[in-house]
């Protein structure tokens, strides 16, 4: 088992997410049917890296938007084969539109975002602002 450092902000973000989920659930139904891709988040010292699983999704069908402190990932996973000529035995994979929001910490520079897509994994790198970090440390003392 891997140890994950406890970060109270994560809990807070989760709570905030569940709050927003609660409120957006009353929104039009089409939106609540979106699926939510799995994500891993790493802290790479000078940046925060998000790894999002989007197997079988085309690059053109992924949208990443940042508005204020919210990063919205959305898009569509199109089914590969449509047709009546096929008999299905198993259909476990999810297709259709997906959406996931992330609340960004203020120390991240939203102007410096890098995104790449490889082997069905979207990697978003958000640079940290060193100046605010330093300033924060001074204010503690």
């Amino acid at each position, binding site marked *: 088992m891997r140890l994950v450092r406890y970060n109270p902000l994560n809990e807070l973000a989760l709570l905030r997410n569940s709050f927003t989920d609660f409120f957006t659930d009353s929104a039009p139904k089409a939106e609540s049917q979106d699926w939510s891709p*799995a994500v891993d988040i790493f*802290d*790479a*010292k000078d940046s925060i890296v998000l790894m999002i699983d989007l197997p079988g999704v085309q690059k053109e069908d992924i949208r990443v938007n940042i508005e204020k402190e919210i990063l919205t990932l959305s898009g569509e996973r199109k089914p590969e084969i449509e047709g009546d000529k*096929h*008999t299905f035995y198993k259909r*476990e994979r999810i297709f259709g539109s997906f959406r996931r929001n992330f609340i960004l910490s203020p120390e991240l520079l939203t102007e410096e975002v890098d995104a790449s897509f490889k*082997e069905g994994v979207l990697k978003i790198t958000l640079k940290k602002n060193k100046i605010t970090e330093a300033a924060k440390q001074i204010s503690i003392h």
Partner: protein
Amino acid sequence: MNQRNEIAKTEENGIKRTGNLKTAIPAVDIYENEDEIILHADMPGVVKEAVSVNVDNGTLSLSGVRTLENKGDPKWEEFGNVEFIRSFSVPQTIDVERVEAELMDGVLKLRLPKSEAAKPRQIEIKTA
């Protein structure tokens, strides 16, 4: 003492696995048309070199190791590094020699052609 533990561990595990990775069952779609059976399995983050597909004794086994280049401290992990493992029994009508596999955008696509004998045939009726 340590050695004994080791032996106990290998007995428990039984199946040989590559390293100490967690295992995951990939989601699959399986469908069939006149000529072949098609299997699509989701394996995000797996590179071609880390995939193995075996057909042995009527069993098709898939394995794919996912190693993300994580140079940082994991803050939030929903998936992590895993080994995708799943096996299926293959009907005898499949021509094992002609099985094709392709990996694209984190999806493993297998085509299992049916043997000529198993394809639906139109039988011509001759007039005397």
